[in-house]
């Protein structure tokens, strides 16, 4: 305790006590985030050597895996798939969520709390169970889709090659509408009542209030929802993986980038190539998320 007098003269002494609390998290974080990340980068610079079907170890190839990846049509097919999904499914889902949040916040709903719980409930359902349920519902032999087709005289198959993305989009939308709705609703509830009172005194109608107060209030959480949706879309895996066997051969081994990475690592036994794909997609996600955030900060999203 002889240091006390010295400390008194230092404007900012080094206080390490915070590490008592942050230390355990940081340690495990390094093990499960930082080390695998570095290992993936290291790994991506090698290539398995095969001779007569027998592994001969690994060979350093620098960035050859990346060059190969950028010329790989299977990779681009997956990227185009998830990008299209991102541009269509995510806006539909977020607009519905926003509409429902505004409806909930308007105070005009009957049974609002029942509504809120019901729409959020699918978030608690595992993607595996959600995909199994919807996969069965989509069934054109015994599923509800078969009954619908019978009734309408159509032959719609949501798991056929033309519609499989729509089928998956519906499942993802079902899972996350309520989650995003609650995020938006939470930020609407932080708007102070005095703001609404002031708007009412100015003679603002319902739509004016929505445009001038409520939509700006949602902005911050909209950024969060968009970024989480981008991350989720780029790593799309569970739903197509569960549906794969139910859809015949429509869902290929390179259906999404993550699907392809899984296939490369475990079926094609090329973990190095798989690691380079994972790194490219990880970087891509971070960059897109960052650009969206900048764009949002500049006022691109209303």
């Amino acid at each position, binding site marked *: 305790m002889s240091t006390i007098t010295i400390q008194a003269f230092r404007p900012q002494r080094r*206080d390490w*006590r*915070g590490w*008592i*609390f*942050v230390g355990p*998290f*940081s340690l495990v*974080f390094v093990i*499960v985030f*930082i080390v*695998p990340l570095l290992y*993936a980068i290291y790994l991506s610079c090698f290539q398995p050597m095969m001779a007569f079907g027998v592994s001969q170890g690994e060979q350093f190839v620098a960035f050859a895996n990346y060059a190969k990846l950028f010329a790989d049509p299977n990779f681009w097919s997956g990227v185009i798939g998830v990008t299209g999904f991102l541009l269509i499914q995510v806006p539909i889902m977020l607009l519905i969520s926003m509409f*429902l949040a505004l*409806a909930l*916040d308007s105070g005009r*709903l009957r049974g609002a709390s029942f509504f809120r719980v019901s*729409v959020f*409930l699918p*978030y608690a359902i*595992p993607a*595996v*169970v959600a995909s*199994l*349920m919807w996969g069965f519902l989509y069934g054109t*032999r015994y599923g*509800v889709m078969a*009954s619908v087709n019978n009734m309408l005289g159509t032959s719609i198959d949501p798991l056929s090659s033309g519609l499989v993305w729509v089928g998956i989009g519906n499942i993802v939308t*079902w899972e996350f*509408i309520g989650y995003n709705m*609650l995020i938006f609703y*939470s*930020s609407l*509830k*932080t708007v102070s*009542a005095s703001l*609404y009172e002031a708007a*009412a005194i100015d*003679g603002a*109608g319902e739509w004016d*209030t929505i445009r001038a107060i409520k939509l700006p209030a949602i902005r911050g*959480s909209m950024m*969060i929802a968009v*970024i989480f949706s981008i*991350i989720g879309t780029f*790593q799309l895996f*569970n739903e197509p993986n*569960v549906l794969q*066997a*139910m859809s015949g051969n429509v869902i290929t081994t390179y259906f999404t980038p993550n699907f392809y990475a*899984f296939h490369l690592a475990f079926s094609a036994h090329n*973990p190095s190539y*798989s690691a380079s794909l*994972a790194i490219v*997609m*990880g970087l891509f*996600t*971070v960059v897109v*998320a*960052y650009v969206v955030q900048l764009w949002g900060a500049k006022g691109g999203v209303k």
Partner: protein
Amino acid sequence: MTSTSTGKPGTASRRRVSYSHAKPRRSTGLTIVTALFVIYALAPLVWLFINATKTQHDYVSTFGFAFGNSFALFDNIAQTFAYRDGIFVRWFFNTLLYVVVGAGGATLLAVLGGYGLAKYRFPGRRGVIAVVMGAIAVPSTALTVPLFLMFSRIGIVNTPWAVIIPSLITPFGFYLMWVFSQEAVPDELIEAARVDGSSELGTFFRISLPLLAPGIVTVALFAIVATWNNYFLPLIMLTSEGWKPLTTGLNDIKLQTYSAAGGTEPLQNVILTGSLLTIIPLVIAFLFLQRYWQSGLAAGSVKE
């Protein structure tokens, strides 16, 4: 709050002066539109329950949203539990193990870390914030393959550790606890405890922990759902049937019915009943603890 109409009566009727938190009139039209989304959200779950009560024969011969000729729910549950010498029960306890140790540990680390970040200024603090916040945007699946290769080198693939260790980190939970601690625990309170001679950990457990309780429940809920529902991680890490959780186990039963060859065993009733049993604990936890979801989402959305 009572008188909202300040204009002339004529204009008030055309452009009703109203704002949401006053006393809005219930709207039937809006209620009907939103009711459609309630149906959308609940219909598959209702369907799941109805079809878990059907025999295999009723499943293929009756309409999806109608009950079958016989009520076979209990037979189906018995069949699910008996499936492959009770492997489903084993999967259930595996899931429970991963949730208790994985999600429990994740919550503990996130609470300690978030609190430390909020209440202490220590060397390297900015670095921790930058790295962990950056990690929120990194798709965790991108790290799973390298993690698998690391784990297989040290020989823990195909053991519970391979699922538990990666589940211990939730950057989002860490962030929520950081935001939550800033407001829930006043600095003066910690300072007062220090003056009284309390150690840092002693202060945390006796003073701060009770104040953090609502945030802790929220983080725990998110961690529990994430662990209970995790699919990609156990799919990669575990090949032996005995350690699988419910999610990958259910998918295995599905592969018995639908394989590339077109399916060998018709086990829809087991898959559906197993699915129902898998979601029941979560649905119950969800309904009883829903206000905590709300507060967690609120904390996440307020701060950017």
